[in-house]
């Protein structure tokens, strides 16, 4: 559980396209072997760019936290509040844990669409949406009934 903050790196063309940035640029889940388990980008990136993304990304910082074998990374603005986003990651993990009752890496792999649904309830347009674990779990229950 170490904090990171990456220094500025080059800006590329897409930056101009999206002048109104979402606060969270992307969320990334990776295991210890570096395999991506979940990725959602709130800004349009070229495929080639997506895989370049590591711990330094343009002029932003990546906040990450490790849970067992999984790294949860959030890319936010350089001026954003690190602790708040660490809490945010923790909340996300708690929700996953609750939803899959004792979540493990494989749950995320086999239910990737559900994880995306949870994520969408949690973060929208790069903004944190819902801070109540109960509300999200309830919403997920309703969504499952829809199917």
């Amino acid at each position, binding site marked *: 559980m170490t904090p990171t903050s990456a220094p500025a790196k080059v800006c590329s063309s897409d930056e101009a396209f999206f002048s109104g940035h979402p606060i969270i640029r992307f969320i990334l889940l990776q295991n210890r072997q570096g395999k991506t388990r979940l990725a959602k980008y709130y800004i349009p990136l070229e495929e080639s760019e997506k895989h370049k993304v590591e711990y330094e990304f343009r002029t932003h910082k990546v906040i990450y936290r490790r849970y067992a074998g999984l790294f949860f990374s959030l890319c936010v603005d350089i001026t954003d509040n690190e602790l708040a986003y660490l809490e945010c990651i923790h909340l996300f993990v708690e929700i996953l844990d609750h939803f899959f009752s004792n979540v493990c890496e494989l749950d995320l*792999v086999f239910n990737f669409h559900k994880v995306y649904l949870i994520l969408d309830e949690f973060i929208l347009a790069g903004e944190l949406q819902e801070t109540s674990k109960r509300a999200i779990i309830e919403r997920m229950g309703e969504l499952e009934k829809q199917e």
Partner: protein
Amino acid sequence: MSGGSGGGGGGGGPSLMDSLFQRTLDDLIKGIRLHTPGAAQSSFISKSLDEIRREIKSTDLQTKSTAVQKLTYLHSLHGVDMSWAAFHAVELTSSPYFLHKKTGYLAASLSFRPSTDVLLLLTNQLRKDLSSANQHEVSLALECLSVICTPDFARDLTPDIFTLLTSSKNFIRKKSIACLLMVFSQYPDAVRVCFKRLVENLESTDNAQTLAATVGVFCELASKEPRSYLPLAPEFYRILVDSRNNWVLIKVLKIFAKLAKLEPRLAKKVVEPICDLMKRSEAKSLIFECVRTIVTSFHDYEFAVKLAVSKIKEFLLDTDLNLKYLGLQGLLLVAPNHLWAVLENKEVVIKSLSDVDRNIRLEALRLVMSMVSDDNVTEISRVLIGYALKSDPEFSNEILRSMLTTCSRNVYEIIIDFDWYVSLLGEMARIPHCQNGEEIEYQLIDIGMRVKDVRPELVRVGRDLLIDPALLGNPSIHRILSASAWISGEYIRFSKNPFEIIEALLQPRTNLLSPSIKALYIHSLFKVLSFCLHSFLFPTNSSLSRVIDEPDFTYSESEGEGETKTFSNLFTKESTVNMLTLVVTSLTPLTETHDVEVHERVRNVLGLAKLAQEEISREVNQNDFKTSIIVRLINDALSEDLGPVSLTAQERVVIPDGLFLEENLGNLDTICANVNIPVSESFSLVKHVLTDVDYVSSQQNEESSEMSGVESTSTSLLSKHRKKHGLFYLPSDIPENDSRNFPPANDPNNQKDNDVEDLVRLTEESLVLKRKSNVPRPRPVVVKLDEGEKFTVTRAKTESNDDLISGAVRDVLLGNESSSYKGKSHDSHLKDGKSEIGDSSRRKSKKKHKNVEENGERSKKKSGGRHKGRQRADGGVNVAVQNPVIPDFLL
């Protein structure tokens, strides 16, 4: 399985078999996990892709949905391209089944890009789902739109989002609010339609999540262009005081950090509540946000800063590495305005240099660097060198790098004792794993050329590096050795023992050097050799010339005399002959070398050495030596100092009479009218540069005249000197000098006292070691000019959209007549009944309002109270007077 029954269903899709035996997502994932990563896995993936391509064409939506889902999985986790399936994703979104719709939207939001061609096909479906009675469908559409929003989507769907802003379902409302940020950024005109409802949501206290989303949007908007949101300050203030939601408070703090910079009265008002928060809150994130806000935006309030620094201290002493890191970061933010805070925590900072966490170490290093000033640079450098020696190679180099950049900033602004600095550079070279050879090389030579006084010490440092055979084994510092060799050759007259340097330059391990550096070694050898021969052949001359040539080094007079003595002892016939033998024997093998540069230089040295060897051994009268003449000539040529050359030196060359550059150019243009592209580029260069300079200098005039008023007499003396010797100053100084007027020939005043006074001043300067502190003084002016120009240019380019947004916001908030006209025409263009009504009624009230305001402005003080009442009545939009001023009741 291509299936014969394909023709039946239409579309030539897959057979029933395919649908029946379709792999599910689980099967696919299990399959991938069964195959070992590498060739086996990728062949399995491409096989599955073939299946998906077939299945996706199915008319059965279930089959199609599963195929798209599998493809989405492969796309998001294995990087498989799925742009070809965009149409199928759109198709799924229109399915009546929620499951299919969900899959379609997921695929769209993960894979669509602004360039996706079927994007527009999605517009109608999005509109339909946004107005669906099923809240989950609305939410799906909003989620998708927030990711793939384009200007077209934003324009077409603004009315639908507008409707959703008043939805009775909180979670729909909050999602549509979050979505607004994307819509605004893509289509600024949407602000005119939706802004009022957004502000209304700011006042809604019924739902914390809605408020959080609204504040989030405002926080982002205000971070781009805060001025427009000043009128909303009372609302934010209320939230700051009332809210208990940390997330919201953090956002509001961010907004105030921006606003307070624009309106000092606001700062006075909010600094108290922020301090209260800081004292009261348990949440570290909120406390840190308070600290950050205080030290960046409210650093004039001593009591607040003190409180913030005490909180930073708590962070620093925490065992949690994250908090410690943030503590350091907080200190870094305080540093520019309150260095005392850093000095107070000096020990923790220095200790952090050896922390286990790399980021903490880097942050501590940056802090240490922020403390450096001309008083403590020696002390801090000593500490840092110590850390560099015991740190891992990566961090050790990081330390060296920041030391080098800090010390060389503004032409070595903070260095007073150059002798010390030069020996520090030498020390750096000896640190194991030193990777900064290039920078050290540059600085050694740069200092040699700029600072005359330091040359004896420089030669000593260079010698110590050169004679150490161990250093030759480390390729990363070869560049430093090359600088040392150059220095030893160039300034050999300061050397106590030139023979020693010849031996060093010829030592066997030099064959480890690359040819280019080797060539430099041999060229330096040539210089040293000719110096030695000169000293031997003209013994009195040389010692005399040492004193005459370098009057500014008389400070070391006693030492110098001693040297002269040893010199005359040094250059005996025996020693010279020995030296020549050494040179000839060591260099002869190198005549076989394949590198032309080395070869050439070896030939030169050998030619001189052999000639001298022959004549000296013949024992004829020294004055008849051919060598004497040659050596004198060579020595005269070499003894001329090389100075730094300004980048714009070319421009200062006066154009000789009879050369009409511009006329010729005109002719050329007419002659080469057809082929003007390459010609004009290469020939009009001079003209262009001159006009540019004209432009710059005319702009500069104002500033520089201001400057000259402020400058003390001593600096003005110095600037005179600069005018005369601008050639030897750095290029960036030039514009300030107004280079058009520069050429001394045009300035009789300058010309007159040029020679005599100049020499006197030069010597004075070199005696006063602090010369350098005067050199960089005018630099900031120049730099500012450059940056300013660039800044305006880039801003004009990049912020156009933000400007549009803030323009629209200002129109809405301030009720600007003319532009709400624009808004009106646009609204009707949108043809949305609801928004039309809501909007026009608002406009009417605003019109009225404006009239009242114009009257009221004169008696503003009196009507302050009523003013407020009216605003409240007006749906809560805080309409301020034209000039965005904080409404009085806040202050």
